[in-house]
């Protein structure tokens, strides 16, 4: 039994390494060949985990070989557009100004209902609201609405933009984040004093404390309500 546990740990570590080397992508963002690769990896990993008579290397070697192939394939797709189009396909315009492109739908093997569902998923409930729709290589549909149905932007309203920075998380679950503390250009004592002012006895009591460049602080103690204020 201990052997199985150790084998599971080793294979899990290798699979984790394999996915890290493959890069971060969600299932919906995967190219078809990446999706197939994920399924194969899942299948390969389970065999030596459950079957002790199979050497662990019989599971690890195919996994590592797949990583190398994937690396070669993605490198080639970056180098050659033709190869990339061959492997991943090209985005296809399914709706344009003249309406639904039936030829493209047939080519993509999708029905009007599938297209309608994808467009509804983007927040448009009628084909008349859509100027262009493009089926991406990942299988998602990108929609460009007609001007009358596109959301109003700040630029449309001529509202002056106020650039803001991302809030930095200084304390999370009772721990100071050293990297973010350095980025905030404020000493640790500044936040220690802030906690004293907020009647917090120990940093361990803090659930989260974030600060923006403008000095807006979001603070919450564990099992208490949040506070937002400026410093």
């Amino acid at each position, binding site marked *: 039994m201990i052997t199985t546990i150790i084998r599971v740990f080793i294979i899990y570590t290798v699979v984790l390494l394999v996915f890290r080397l493959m*890069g971060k992508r969600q299932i919906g963002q995967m190219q078809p060949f990446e999706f197939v690769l994920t399924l194969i990896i899942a299948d390969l990993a389970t065999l030596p985990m459950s079957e002790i*008579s*199979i*050497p662990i*290397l019989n599971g690890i*070697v195919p996994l*590592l070989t797949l*990583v*190398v192939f994937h690396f070669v394939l993605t490198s080639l797709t970056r180098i050659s557009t033709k190869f990339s189009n061959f492997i991943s396909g090209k985005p296809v315009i399914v709706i344009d100004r003249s309406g639904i492109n039936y030829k493209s739908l047939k080519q993509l093997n999708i029905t009007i209902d599938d297209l309608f569902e994808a467009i509804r998923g983007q927040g448009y409930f009628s084909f008349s609201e859509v100027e262009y729709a493009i089926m991406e290589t990942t299988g998602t549909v990108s929609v460009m609405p007609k001007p009358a149905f596109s959301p109003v932007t700040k630029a449309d309203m001529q509202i002056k933009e106020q650039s803001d920075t991302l809030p930095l998380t200084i304390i999370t679950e009772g721990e100071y984040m050293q990297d973010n503390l350095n980025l905030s250009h404020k000493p640790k004592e500044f936040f220690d004093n802030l906690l004293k002012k907020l009647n917090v006895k120990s940093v361990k009591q803090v659930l989260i404390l974030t600060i923006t460049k403008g000095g807006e602080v979001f603070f919450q103690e564990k099992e208490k309500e949040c506070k937002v204020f400026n410093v």
Partner: protein
Amino acid sequence: MNRTLGIILICLFLIGLCIADELLVDSTLHQIKLTGNKLYAYAQQLDSVNDKQLITEANNLLEFWSSRESILSFLSNHKDIREMGIELTKMIAYAKQDIREEFNASLELVIYYTDAFHQVMGISFQNIF
């Protein structure tokens, strides 16, 4: 850059493993087949298989297999490897009991396993497809 380095390391690991696999499996199987054939030829000259030299040679073969078995377990299915060990042990037992037919059958099986193992594990057109 880190990813490229990782891929290079993986490639080196795979190449090293392939070379080790080929050399180790090849040399082990070759040695067993060679000794097996010698034992077979020697046994045919004897009136009784309960021969001191034959048993010593068979024991040496089993010892050699046992020393390589643990390393081969890293590369091959444990069930396949176990079969070879079982047959070698049986062969020695039959020799001690002077059962010639069973001794010959076990020895032939050992030689057959080395061939079969080679055919299944080696690089060949049939194995790839």
